[in-house]
């Protein structure tokens, strides 16, 4: 029964996408009607995945799995402990995103465009869920590629110039990560890790261990937005439609973490060097994202930097697991819980941006404000929120680990402070944004509310039941205070900042940040300049090459016999062929032959 459900879950969205594509061949009028119908029944695509995770798997029953031995090199999926929570969170988020784009009565201004958006969302749903549940390396790569290239469709959906530039940057990094991953997976498979279950052990034992770990960190680092490879995130999120960026930040970014948890030899071998490097990079990303994020003008870019910061937090946990094998089990559990929490909270915030624009002014305003505030507090890790669960599990997992002398458990809370600052900036920007005409409450609102509600309830329940290694924060005073002092610190700094800027004491770029000081995608700007100069240089060498070839051709033409030489040759030939000429040649030849014969024995 579970295999059939699994097959249905994977096939239904793909069938819908196929139908959407083929509907294009019908006559325009019928095609539009068919497309509207298909888009209508897109959101339920997430339901089978949710049901799959809720199947009673008590009593060691075989976890739901699907194997197709005839496809590619034998593809197989399996919903194991690690995948279950992530699939649930991802499926709910995708469901909400699809509902937000598909069901609202007055189709938003994109009109026909929503079919393309829905199709790409469906494909990335399959890809994302496939990545989480893949049971062997080839399937993992297949789903990862599917998800990455579908995401490109989401990023360039609006076809504006910025969208196309964001798409280009995203594509370059995605292709680079695909290539690095392919190399890593090939090395893993050749070391014997075809099935993911025994991949970490195979990697630990392989003689290319350092090559594999390096490639994995780079390949998945692009997706997880760790420091040098994060540049696509702040460009992609503003360009993509809100629902798409919710899914991008909420679910797709987590694929990087899943990849690390699946393939890295956590708990098999202690990799001091790699672990520490990852932790340092992650923390640097987490802390540097805050100032850059605060200087932006577009709320979605601020959220993007908040994602980079949160993913930094997650990456540090994985880094610890890499460095200290004993803590691997706990860190993995904590990473999963934190991913689930971040998925819901960040998804709610991203979906909230258009919701605030459409429903911020009408009767539903207070509901939206409360929802957004709740999600923001969750991201910051306020007590009793899903954030608290995630942060507590993470802090508890990395107990007693020091990096470069600083105790990790002291550093992590500061990330919460940074998030608070970012979210304050986000709140201010939203407040200042002008609101559109009030809409009557429709699917977009209910979808957002669904995400906010599940965001609060689901992390608590699934941590207790599905992730045994992570433990829940109790209600004692000390844990409450641990969760809340970073937020208070953030508020104090925010207030001080606000006061100073009100009295013009700060320099103008700090007081009224407008995104010009550090443009979104920070490192990418110098990289693009470098690329343009390289392309100009290449064009230069090509043009110089063409000029030198033309000169060579000119010289060759002069060398070739001109008409004068040809006539001389022709008359020479005529002379040799004349009667007396050929006679003379014959006589000479006969003389030679006679001489040779006379001499020869």
């Amino acid at each position, binding site marked *: 029964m579970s295999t059939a459900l699994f097959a249905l879950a994977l096939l239904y969205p793909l069938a819908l996408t196929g139908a959407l594509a083929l509907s294009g061949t019908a006559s325009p009028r019928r095609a539009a009607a068919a497309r509207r119908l298909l888009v209508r029944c897109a959101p339920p695509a997430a339901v089978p995945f949710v049901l799959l995770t809720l199947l009673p798997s008590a009593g060691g029953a075989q976890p739901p799995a699907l194997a197709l031995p005839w496809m590619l090199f034998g593809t197989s999926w399996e919903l194991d402990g690690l995948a279950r929570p992530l699939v649930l969170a991802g499926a709910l988020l995708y469901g909400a995103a699809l509902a937000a784009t598909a069901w609202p009565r007055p189709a938003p201004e994109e009109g026909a465009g929503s079919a393309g958006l829905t199709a790409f969302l469906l494909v990335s749903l399959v890809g994302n869920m496939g990545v989480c549940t893949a049971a062997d390396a080839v399937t993992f790569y297949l789903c990862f590629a599917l998800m990455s290239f579908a995401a490109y469709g989401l990023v360039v959906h609006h076809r504006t110039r910025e969208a196309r530039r964001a798409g280009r940057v995203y594509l370059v990094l995605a292709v680079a990560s695909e290539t690095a991953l392919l190399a890593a997976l090939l090395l893993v498979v050749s070391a014997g890790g075809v099935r993911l279950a025994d991949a970490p052990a195979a990697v630990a034992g392989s003689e290319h261990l350092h090559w594999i770990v390096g490639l994995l960190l780079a390949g998945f680092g692009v997706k997880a937005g760790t420091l040098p490879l994060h540049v696509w995130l702040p460009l992609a999120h503003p360009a993509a439609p809100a629902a798409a960026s919710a899914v991008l930040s909420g679910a797709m970014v987590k694929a990087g973490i899943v990849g690390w948890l699946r393939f890295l030899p956590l708990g098999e071998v202690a990799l001091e060097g790699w672990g520490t490097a990852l932790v340092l990079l992650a923390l640097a990303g987490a802390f540097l994202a805050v100032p850059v994020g605060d200087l932006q003008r577009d709320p979605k870019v601020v959220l993007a930097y908040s994602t980079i910061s949160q993913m930094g937090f997650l990456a540090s946990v994985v880094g610890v697991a890499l460095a200290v094998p004993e803590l691997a089990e706990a860190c993995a559990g904590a990473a999963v819980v934190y991913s689930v929490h971040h998925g819901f909270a960040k998804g709610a915030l991203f979906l909230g941006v258009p919701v605030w624009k459409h429903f911020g002014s009408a009767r539903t305003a207070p509901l939206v404000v409360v929802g957004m505030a709740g999600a923001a507090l969750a991201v910051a890790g306020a007590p009793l929120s899903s954030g608290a669960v995630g942060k507590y599990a993470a802090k508890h997992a990395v107990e007693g680990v020091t990096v470069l002398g600083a105790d990790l458990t002291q550093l992590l809370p500061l990330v919460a402070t940074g998030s608070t600052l970012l979210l304050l900036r986000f709140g201010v920007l939203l407040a200042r944004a002008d609101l559109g005409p009030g809409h009557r409450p429709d699917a977009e609102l209910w979808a957002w509310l669904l995400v906010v509600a599940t965001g609060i309830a689901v992390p608590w329940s699934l941590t207790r039941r599905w992730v045994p290694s992570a433990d829940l924060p109790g209600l004692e005073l000390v844990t409450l205070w641990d969760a809340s002092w970073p937020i208070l610190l953030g508020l104090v700094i925010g207030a001080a900042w606000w006061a100073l800027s009100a009295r013009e004491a700060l320099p103008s770029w700090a007081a009224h940040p407008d995104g010009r000081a550090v443009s979104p995608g920070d490192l990418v700007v110098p990289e693009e300049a470098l690329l343009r100069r390289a392309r100009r240089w290449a064009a230069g060498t090509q043009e110089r090459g063409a000029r030198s070839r033309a000169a060579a051709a000119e010289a060759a033409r002069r060398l070739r016999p001109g008409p004068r030489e040809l006539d001389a040759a*022709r008359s020479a030939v005529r002379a040799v062929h004349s*009667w007396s000429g050929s*006679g003379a040649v014959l006589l000479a030849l006969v003389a030679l032959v006679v001489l040779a014969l006379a001499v020869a024995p």
Partner: protein
Amino acid sequence: MSTLEWYLWVAAALLGLACVRLLLARDPLVRLIAINVAGSGSLLVLVALAARTDPPDPVLHALVLTGIVITVAFTGVGLVLLRRAEEAAEAPGEDGAAGNGEGP
């Protein structure tokens, strides 16, 4: 050196000189005459060879007769062609690409 060898060397010299003259001559008429001289040179060789036995070998004499017949036939045809070739060379307008045999 017996008279037989003497005649053989004379015949060979005659044949050789006639051939050289034939090959190097530019004027076709000179070549035609050279052919006849070469022909007679070759026939003298045959006669000399025949004379080695007494009575002289009839087969070689038959060869000599045939040689004479062929040389005369060719000389006749050659003269007719020579005349026609000169007429053709004088008559303008012929696209005498091959000219009088001097073409490449």
